[in-house]
């Protein structure tokens, strides 16, 4: 189990992996980023309420996307997908507003 995430599921992992790759391609202005973004839609809606709430509470901390060239990171990792660290190592869930998203859903 990845540090920082209380629980994971294959769908959640798939979403996070696609998200990380999508962000990397976005930084390179690669139009394929939108293909990955499109692929994330059905996965998002197939997640549980709890998984969606957890993802919506995150504060993204993408060190690879902040100061370092993404292309350099990709080369160092030996490719786009297989060698990249899991996105879950790049994000930290925010724990101070744990129920806000669910409350929002209920209120709608």
């Amino acid at each position, binding site marked *: 189990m990845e540090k920082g995430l209380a629980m994971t599921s294959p769908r959640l992992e798939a979403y996070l992996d696609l*998200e990380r790759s*999508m*962000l990397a391609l*976005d930084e390179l202005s690669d139009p394929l*980023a*939108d293909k990955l*973004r*499109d692929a*994330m*839609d059905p996965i*998002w*809606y197939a997640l549980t309420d709890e998984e*969606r709430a957890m*993802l*919506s*509470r*995150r*504060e*993204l901390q993408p060190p690879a996307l902040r100061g370092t060239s993404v292309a350099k990171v990709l080369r160092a990792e030996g490719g786009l997908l297989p060698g990249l660290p899991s996105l879950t190592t790049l994000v930290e869930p*925010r724990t101070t507003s744990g129920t806000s*998203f669910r409350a*929002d*859903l209920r209120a*709608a």
Partner: protein
Amino acid sequence: MPQGAVRLTEVAYTPSVLFRSMSPDTDGLPRLGRSRRNLGVVVPGDIEPDASGEVAGGRGGLSVSPCSMSKLPPHRQPRGMRPSSTGRRGDCVYSLDLEALTGSLLSVRPDPENPWIHALIEPSKTMTLHDYESALSGTRSEWKRAWP
């Protein structure tokens, strides 16, 4: 159904406003086109015409989020909108009042699997794909920028 009424099927609630993240065109209104970042549907994908090229309600349409832009998936929220947003920087969130669809060839159907967070703007009756896309394009001036 009365002429001009907005049809809501499988009603679990009545969203008065719908949200969608889209690329702004030079005039600030959403760009038209067959992309999930434009005001348009991906064909096939978002909607499937039948063998005669016609589309109908209940078979997909333009994806929107009801009631609140916070219900957009994080990867559709333009970066900077929220700490968790991973959408394309430069895109905007637009809102559409449900009233804008009154009298149009369009209706709103909440996603039966996720009615609180997802809905579809669909054809209100069987029509050609061209007519459906024209009806969607006809809403362009009704979309208001909600973010930024």
